[in-house]
């Protein structure tokens, strides 16, 4: 049985995501010691520094989605099932920094598709309350652990279908954020595939530094961040960082 981490990385005009991916890969190698596959395009691949033994899948990524006025290349994640070479895959955002090996626990379980349904805001500001933005409980597609089973494939196929008809599903579930978001696409897919009932989730909360927190420093063990003129840090704890300026830190 093979295990590995699958990452998607595409530069945009405004963000050099490859820099974030490089940091993420270093932490995966140090703390998870798993095989890594990066799905990227040729343009981004050329910018990546040599990162040792990695697998690359070069694709022509789908474009067209936007976040604010910026490009947002997040439309290919639904292909993760087909692109993953592993029996058990940790599908991770490149801005999720594994400062611990806690994700390894999720490889030794029977469940074939697990995703976070809870989030922990590390600034304690509780900025992640999306309860009133849709009629479906929000899931967080930042980390997904899946096995190559027919059920997991159904979920990813459903995400592809939702992507094609995203505005319809936004109407159906009264999602008021109209640009394509994987969090909602997976929330809807999981709900549909499970016959509109709750399913199994990753235990624990997704530790997240929201966009209001500016990253000041990152080292091998943690992150120093600033928000509201306050400086704080997290150490030896996985962190999902939304501040894209971290490419310059």
């Amino acid at each position, binding site marked *: 049985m093979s295990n590995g981490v699958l990452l998607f990385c595409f530069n945009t005009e405004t963000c050099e995501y490859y820099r974030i991916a490089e940091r993420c890969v270093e932490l995966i190698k140090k703390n998870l010691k798993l095989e890594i596959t990066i799905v990227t395009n040729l343009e981004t691949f050329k910018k990546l520094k040599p990162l040792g033994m990695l697998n690359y899948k070069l694709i022509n990524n789908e474009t067209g989605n936007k976040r604010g006025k910026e490009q947002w290349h997040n439309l290919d994640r639904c292909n993760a099932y087909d692109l993953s070479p592993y029996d058990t895959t940790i599908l991770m955002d490149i801005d999720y920094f594994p400062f611990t090996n*806690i994700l390894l626990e999720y490889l030794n379980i029977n469940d074939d598709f697990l995703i976070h349904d809870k989030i*922990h805001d590390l600034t304690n500001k509780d900025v992640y309350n999306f309860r009133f933005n849709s009629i479906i409980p929000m899931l967080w597609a930042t980390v997904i652990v899946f096995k190559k089973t027919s059920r997991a494939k159904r979920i990813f196929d459903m995400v592809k279908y939702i992507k094609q008809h995203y505005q319809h599903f936004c109407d159906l579930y009264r999602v008021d954020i109209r640009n394509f978001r994987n969090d909602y696409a997976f929330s809807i897919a999981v709900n549909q595939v499970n016959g509109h009932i709750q399913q199994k989730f990753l*235990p*624990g909360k997704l*530790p997240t530094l929201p966009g209001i927190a500016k990253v000041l420093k990152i080292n091998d063990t943690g992150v120093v961040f600033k928000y509201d003129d*306050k*400086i*704080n840090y997290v150490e030896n704890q996985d962190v999902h960082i939304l501040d894209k300026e971290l490419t310059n830190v």
Partner: protein
Amino acid sequence: MDIGELKQKADLSYDISVAKKNALERAVSRQIFAYNGHLFRADAQTICLVKTLSEQKDSFFVLDTNNNPCEIKEPADFLNKLIERNQETLNAYHQINKEFAKRR
């Protein structure tokens, strides 16, 4: 104590409170561990349940974090792992807590 100093103390107190909350969250997330293909929390509730059941039976069923039943065939081994993980995480939290106490 002037107002500037009071504000400084209040800020420090807030920072410590946030850091403490994050450290506790870290401890709680570290308590999750896989056993026999299931995920469990090495928290006080699970430890007490397993301890109580192991005193009555050689093997028994408990629910994992997603409410799937899991048969525990070696209660002593499972209990040891639960206690080990629980104390490891709480010890780490205790160390951080001591640092916070110094900063106050």
